[in-house]
């Protein structure tokens, strides 16, 4: 195979001299998907922007060569570079909503690319636009051409972006986190589309991602980046089977999955080093438990292993191997990691839950937001964000609420805390109904239930110091008699969440994302709650940090007997942490049961689709089919303003029957712990009965 793109010793640096991308070299063969895998801030997006020569102000290319089809594009004048961008090399971005111009129709935007790179105009361009949209799997193409971006959903917008990128018939497509902003079912659709397009056109893809699952699905070659450097490079199967670099090994170990549910995850301590804070040695050395003196003193070179796998680590340095240190066998090191963390936690401490012992009981909760229209602001309809949700959490248990974005799961969390006024239903917390309580009475109940938010960058007031943040809740709810007692409690809390007591007098911006999430957890714990509502607490964090936070949550549950309502779209995390699962679709719960039941044997077609859309990576390092038939969902979730008649899921359901279009299915009790809202179950049960 010929190399389409060849990058040699690329260095991209800030104007102050700090290298963001530090000496990177790789080749991409024709028709190959090359994945650049790394955590946030490791320089992978900057690598892509360097290739496109679209670097932001204050960042410049310092050295290196980039050959695209044997042409050094770094020396080209800007004029010729414009021809290459979009022509031979196209890029799609993470946020499809932000990469389309909101005041131009989709057709005009694609036609613009066609006119520039293919010199196509008028009717010919329009025909080609329609063809491209069809190619990316959009239906009703003629209407879509005249649609504005706001009329399209996120998945459709990303398809349009891909169509636009394909318009110039590029040889290389750079996809920067193309599915990060999308739901799992839509992500599966887009990845499938990328794969198909690649097969048809034979283009190469440079895929930039932090998600091992995405890599497992479509990459051929994988390069792992850490702090501006590529630390390991190998074909996908080989990398997944034998990760060589300690960082890659730990990245795999940090992934939560069902088999690890009993014990702590092998989290990587610390966080990705800040720009410019790297010393002379190996950049991973401070977080590496196999590091020795040499790692801190000397930057490891690029070593090619006998199996052609490239790695930047002293462990594989041939001069070093025989004399000073035996490189641990990969399997041995993994076993070692596993054993070192095992036994710290056991699964047997959960209190037996009985039906009378529920901490939180929610009956038929509804949250409808009115839609106003006209001068008189009359109510013309309702957004039924939550439409009849019932759930119950026993003390010391974790209930996960799972669903795609927009299904109303966050609104449930807020309605429980009475941050959003429920329209109907009851929320009984520790025996008291919270709905309709006055502000004073509610304050008494507040201490029992607290929330941890998704974005640790938005959930801490930047103008308050850590101690003030932690103290606020205690002040309001009069916890602790005087300020010395509160200060003591703050020290305790910081210990509990694993932060130094000296961090008390610092401001949130001085902390990394994971540390900030720890502060947020400490803030919630400050008032001694018995239930924590965790709203996607790890989705804004890197994989290695996510494992730390999940471990922390699990430890806290065991030490303090906390109950969690865990709101998430990440099924792997849910599988690791939860005891019971509720699957939500369009404001209603479609299936509930214990983790084992729902994850291993999903009954509802939506649950099945959701689970099969998540790429599973098992121990052997390849994609495992997870024992469930793969259900690819078409289309997207309808708007909660106007839910479909009958079962809400029937327009996307592969098993839809006539009865599904008529009435919403009642709950079918499959077992004591299990309920499914689906006519398939009803008929099944009828047959048995």
């Amino acid at each position, binding site marked *: 195979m010929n190399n389409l793109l060849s990058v040699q010793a690329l260095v991209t640096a800030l104007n102050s001299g700090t290298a963001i991308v530090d000496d990177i070299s790789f080749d991409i063969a024709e028709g190959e998907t090359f994945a650049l895998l790394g955590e946030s801030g490791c320089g992978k997006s900057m690598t892509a922007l360097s290739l496109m020569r679209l670097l932001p102000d204050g960042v410049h290319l310092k050295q290196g060569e980039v050959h695209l089809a044997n042409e050094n594009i770094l020396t080209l004048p800007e004029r010729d570079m414009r021809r290459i961008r979009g022509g031979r090399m196209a890029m799609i971005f993470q946020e499809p909503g932000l990469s389309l111009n909101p005041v131009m129709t989709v057709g005009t935007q694609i036609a613009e690319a066609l006119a520039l790179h293919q010199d196509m105009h008028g009717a010919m361009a329009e025909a080609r636009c329609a063809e491209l949209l069809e190619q990316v799997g959009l239906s009703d193409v003629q209407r879509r051409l005249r649609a504005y971006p706001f009329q399209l959903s996120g998945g459709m917008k990303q398809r349009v972006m891909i169509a636009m990128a394909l318009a110039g018939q590029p040889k290389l497509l750079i996809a920067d986190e193309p599915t990060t902003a999308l739901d799992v079912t839509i992500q599966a659709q887009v990845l499938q589309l990328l794969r198909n397009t690649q097969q048809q056109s034979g283009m190469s893809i440079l895929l930039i991602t932090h998600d091992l699952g995405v890599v497992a699905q479509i990459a051929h070659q994988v390069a792992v980046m850490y702090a501006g450097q590529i630390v390991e490079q190998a074909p996908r199967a080989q990398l997944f089977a034998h990760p060589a670099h300690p960082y890659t090994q730990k990245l795999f170990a940090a992934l939560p999955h069902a088999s690890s549910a009993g014990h702590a995850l092998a989290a990587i301590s610390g966080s990705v080093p800040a720009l410019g804070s790297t010393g002379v040695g190996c950049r991973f050395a401070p977080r590496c438990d196999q590091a020795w003196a040499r790692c801190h003193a000397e930057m490891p070179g690029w070593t090619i292993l006998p199996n052609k796998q490239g790695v930047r680590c002293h462990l594989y340095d041939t001069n070093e191997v025989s004399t000073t240190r035996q490189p641990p066998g990969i399997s041995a090191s993994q076993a070692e990691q596993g054993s070192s963390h095992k036994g710290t936690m056991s699964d047997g401490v959960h209190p037996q839950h009985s039906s009378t012992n529920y901490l939180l009981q929610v009956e038929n909760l509804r949250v409808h937001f009115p839609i106003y229209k006209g001068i008189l602001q009359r109510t013309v309809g309702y957004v039924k964000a939550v439409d009849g949700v019932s759930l119950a959490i026993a003390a010391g248990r974790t209930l996960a609420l799972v669903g795609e974005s927009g299904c109303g799961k966050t609104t449930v969390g807020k309605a429980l805390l009475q941050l959003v006024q429920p329209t109907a239903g009851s929320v009984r917390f520790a025996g008291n109904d919270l709905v309709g309580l006055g502000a004073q009475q509610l304050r008494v109940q507040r201490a029992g239930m607290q929330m941890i938010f998704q974005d640790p960058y938005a959930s801490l007031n930047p*103008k308050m110091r850590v101690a003030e943040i932690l103290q*606020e809740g205690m002040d309001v709810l009069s916890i602790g008699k005087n300020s010395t007692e509160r200060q003591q409690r703050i020290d305790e809390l910081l210990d509990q969440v694993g932060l130094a007591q000296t961090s008390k007098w610092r401001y949130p911006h001085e902390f990394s994302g994971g540390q900030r999430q720890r502060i947020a957890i400490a803030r919630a714990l400050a008032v001694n709650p018995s239930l924590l509502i965790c709203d996607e607490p790890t989705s804004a964090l890197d994989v290695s940090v996510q494992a730390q936070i999940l471990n922390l949550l699990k430890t806290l549950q065991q030490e303090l007997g906390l109950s969690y309502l865990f709101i998430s779209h990440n099924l792997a995390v849910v599988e690791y942490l939860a005891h019971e699962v509720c699957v939500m679709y369009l404001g209603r719960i479609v299936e509930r049961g214990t983790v084992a039941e729902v994850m291993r044997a999903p009954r509802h077609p939506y649950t099945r689709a959701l689970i099969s859309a998540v790429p599973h990576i098992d121990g052997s390092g390849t994609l495992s089919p997870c024992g469930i038939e793969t259900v690819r969902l078409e289309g997207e979730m309808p708007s909660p303003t106007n839910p479909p008649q009958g079962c809400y899921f029937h327009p996307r359901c592969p098993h839809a029957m006539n009865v599904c279009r008529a009435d919403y299915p009642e709950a079918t009790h499959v077992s004591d712990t299990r309920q499914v809202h689906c006519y398939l179950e009803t008929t099944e049960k009828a047959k048995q009965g």
Partner: protein
Amino acid sequence: MMPVVLWTDAMIFLLLATILAGAWHIRKWPHLMLPWQRVATSSMGMVSLLILSLFIMVGLLDSLHYRIALPDKNNGQTVYSAEVVSAFDALASGLKNRTEKTYSAPMAVYLYAKESMETPGGEILRDHPRLRFGGAHLQNIERDWLGDVVQKAVYGALAGLLLGVLLIAAVWILFLRQRGDHLPLPKITDSPRKALLITTLLLATFFGAVANLAASYHVLGTDKVGQDVLYLALKSIRTGLVIGTITTLVTLPFALLLGVAAGYFRGWVDDIIQYIYTVLSSIPSVLLIAAAVLMMQVTIEMHPEWFETSAARADVRLLSLCLILGLTSWTGLCRLLRGETLKLRELEYIQAAQSFGVSSPRIITQHIMPNVMHIVLIAMVMDFSGLVLAEAVLSYVGVGVDPSTMSFGTLINAARLEMGREPIVWWTLAAAFGFMLVLVLAANLFADVVRDAFDPRLSHKN
């Protein structure tokens, strides 16, 4: 001598005290200090601050008012003059008292208009008469004038330069030595200090030359009734500053409270506040201000017994102008703050506070106010220059300050007639424009630097 505290004086000193207290507070908190430290590293910011502080110094001196005791006593009781003068008047008494008959050009020794004069020989001659004060010491005007002007300018400049050097040396000894820097010379390699040094020396030289010339000439000429234009322009500074700052202070509570309340509470509170500011901003502001000022003027005219002196009356008129301007111009900032609060209230840290049951007033003061302060600060400094200009426009229209109050607006208003004369009298207008330009430019440049320093997106550059 009897000190007189006019309303605006009281407010100015209150404001000064607040600012000093605020600065004291900020010194204690490193996160509050940080943006100001960034301002302090900017040459542009420090130079414009230096120039601004010169204006403020003139304004403050001009705010120390008093009445002089008259020499004759009435039944043993001291009688005070009806005229209220300020410390600045006392310092600039030379400028104030040396009034000519009418117009004279800058640096002139003759009046601008011809007059009939009787020569010692008894003939009637029509010519420009000599000025009473400007260049009165010259014997042979044709021969000596230019030489004298140059000589006085150079001597003054040298004296100023010397004073400047002494001043810098004094500052260095007072401040830098205290910190324990035992350097033989102040370190002047970093740019803001260097720029400050150069600016101080240049300004000292310039002021020295002007002061020395002003002792014997009218540097910016005289106006219709022979008053020194330089004096008028310097007196106008206080009016400009009062209007700029007090008006901003009047707008602030309205904008801050209403804007944040509208954004935070939404619902009917938001509706009412929005209606109020939409109505206010849809009335042409000059008309609204003119109507309010005229009403206020009538009230003042009807109650002469309220005021002891004419200065007090003029001062109340100035203050009420500030109030009226303030009451009509809070809408812009209010709208801005409402928008920002709408954004902030959805942030998760506000929701976290709500889930603790923190009360709304406390959320507003603890969480929202500190996070909109940067906008308030920037808007205040930007408004300041706009208001100085607004006063000029209103005085020009005739609804501004009392005619006895010197302001840039009244100067410009007077210049309206002078521009129509032949030959043209240009110096009043030029002086007003020159002073306003420097004041507003310095304020704007300073605001720019402050805004950059508070912008979190720019904070990583250094």
